[in-house]
């Protein structure tokens, strides 16, 4: 038997262990990139093999946090794909403004880069006070960092450029303090944000919202899980609510394709049909 086949079996066993012990199911993730992350986690945690990782997951419950942090990909940036945020500002927020309360779900929020981006948009459009953002992720370590709102200062330039290209009305530096190679966003930006652990693979609807932002998360899922999550989004949206996906994600070939209209193709903005 080839080494690679042995590794394949160890990976399958790892996925089974994680599911049986802790209820996290990674069997429905796209295997090639999952395997890369699992190998990197093995190296980082000093395990001799993936089988050894599985044993650690079994013997050491506290290890789970680290495993989930290693297997998820909290890589993000503020105002990533600026035209998307520009479109949200110009086309979507004016529609949301007509609601007495605005509820937004940001699913897969990583370190919160998009949460603060949204908060700034809402603030600048005068809508923040009546808004509530639910920011969720399955990675608790990332969620804690998201709530801190602290980023390496080396990101400031990219974030600022993106912000300007997204139609920013001020200077991004008005919203953060720079200190020791770090920037920290104003506490006030998260006064209407709830950070919570939510696993898209297993958890259900928890709120009715007018906008869901879930970008660069579905690319990691297989067809089955993607469809499950999209149905969850559909069921969480008010009629005529908005769904915003990542720039390489689409509703084409999914089971909810017919439940949505395309609102803006280049921003990957979809709108749930009204009841009929």
């Amino acid at each position: 038997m080839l080494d690679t086949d042995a590794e394949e079996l160890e990976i399958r066993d790892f996925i089974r262990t994680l599911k049986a012990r802790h209820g996290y199911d990674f069997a429905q993730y796209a295997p090639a990139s999952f395997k890369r992350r699992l190998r990197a986690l093995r190296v980082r945690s000093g395990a001799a093999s993936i089988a050894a990782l599985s044993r650690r997951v079994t013997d050491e419950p506290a290890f789970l946090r680290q495993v989930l942090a290693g297997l998820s990909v909290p890589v993000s940036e503020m105002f990533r794909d600026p035209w998307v945020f520009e479109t949200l500002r110009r086309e979507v927020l004016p529609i949301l403004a007509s609601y007495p309360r605005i509820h937004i779900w940001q699913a897969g929020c990583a370190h919160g880069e998009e949460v603060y981006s949204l908060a700034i948009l809402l603030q600048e459009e005068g809508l923040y006070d009546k808004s509530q953002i639910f920011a969720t992720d399955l990675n608790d370590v990332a969620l804690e960092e998201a709530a801190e709102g602290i980023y390496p200062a080396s990101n400031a330039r990219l974030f600022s450029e993106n912000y300007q290209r997204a139609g920013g009305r001020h200077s991004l530096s008005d919203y953060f303090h720079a200190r020791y190679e770090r920037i920290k966003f104003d506490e006030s930006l998260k006064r209407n944000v709830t950070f919570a652990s939510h696993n898209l693979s297993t958890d259900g609807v928890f709120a009715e919202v007018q906008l869901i932002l879930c970008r660069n998360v579905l690319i990691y899922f297989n067809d089955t899980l993607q469809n499950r999550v999209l149905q969850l989004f559909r069921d969480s949206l008010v009629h005529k609510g908005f769904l915003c996906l990542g720039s390489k994600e689409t509703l084409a070939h999914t089971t909810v394709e017919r439940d949505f209209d395309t609102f803006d193709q280049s921003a990957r903005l979809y709108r749930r049909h009204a009841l009929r």
Partner: protein
Amino acid sequence: MRSAKTAAPRVVVIGASVGGLEALKQVLGALPADYPWPVIVLLHTSAGYRGTRLDTLLAQRCALPVREAEARRPLEAGVVHIAPAGYHLLVEQDLRFSLSVDEKVSYVRPSADVLFESLAEAVGVGAVGVILTGANDDGAAGLAAIRARGGLAIVQDPEEAQAPQMPQAALRMAGADQVLSLEAIGARLAALPGESA
């Protein structure tokens, strides 16, 4: 289990960076309209074609349809699939693409190392890896993975490459079955399917 060499699906993968656009036009221009294998092309965005879409630029010079690779969609014979900017592109065992925004590898995303390694794992001896001009080391580890599984490795002659570093790194780390000029690479890729039929 894939055992016989002939049973493995064949896929051509090409990685390039600085100087890559011109090089790709030449190589892809040599492939006939009835090319029987899927072709995957990865050009680093730092190679400076930003502004115009790479698929449009390459389609002008290529008899095959050129399309951006999409997550979960299958590799198609006779199609040139382009890695989208900003995402890693991977090939799954079931010969579908997937995308990720995982950390950069070898300082780049998309990374040829990631793509080549995934293809090596997916098709083993069926992989044909090509490294062209570029000013970094990306692709060297990926080409080594292709060779380790019995796939074919072709590297552009560094003497001829606009930027020799990427072919040199590949030769140092992976070696190659053939070191060729761009012109010869095009001809070689065009001839390969006939030889393995």
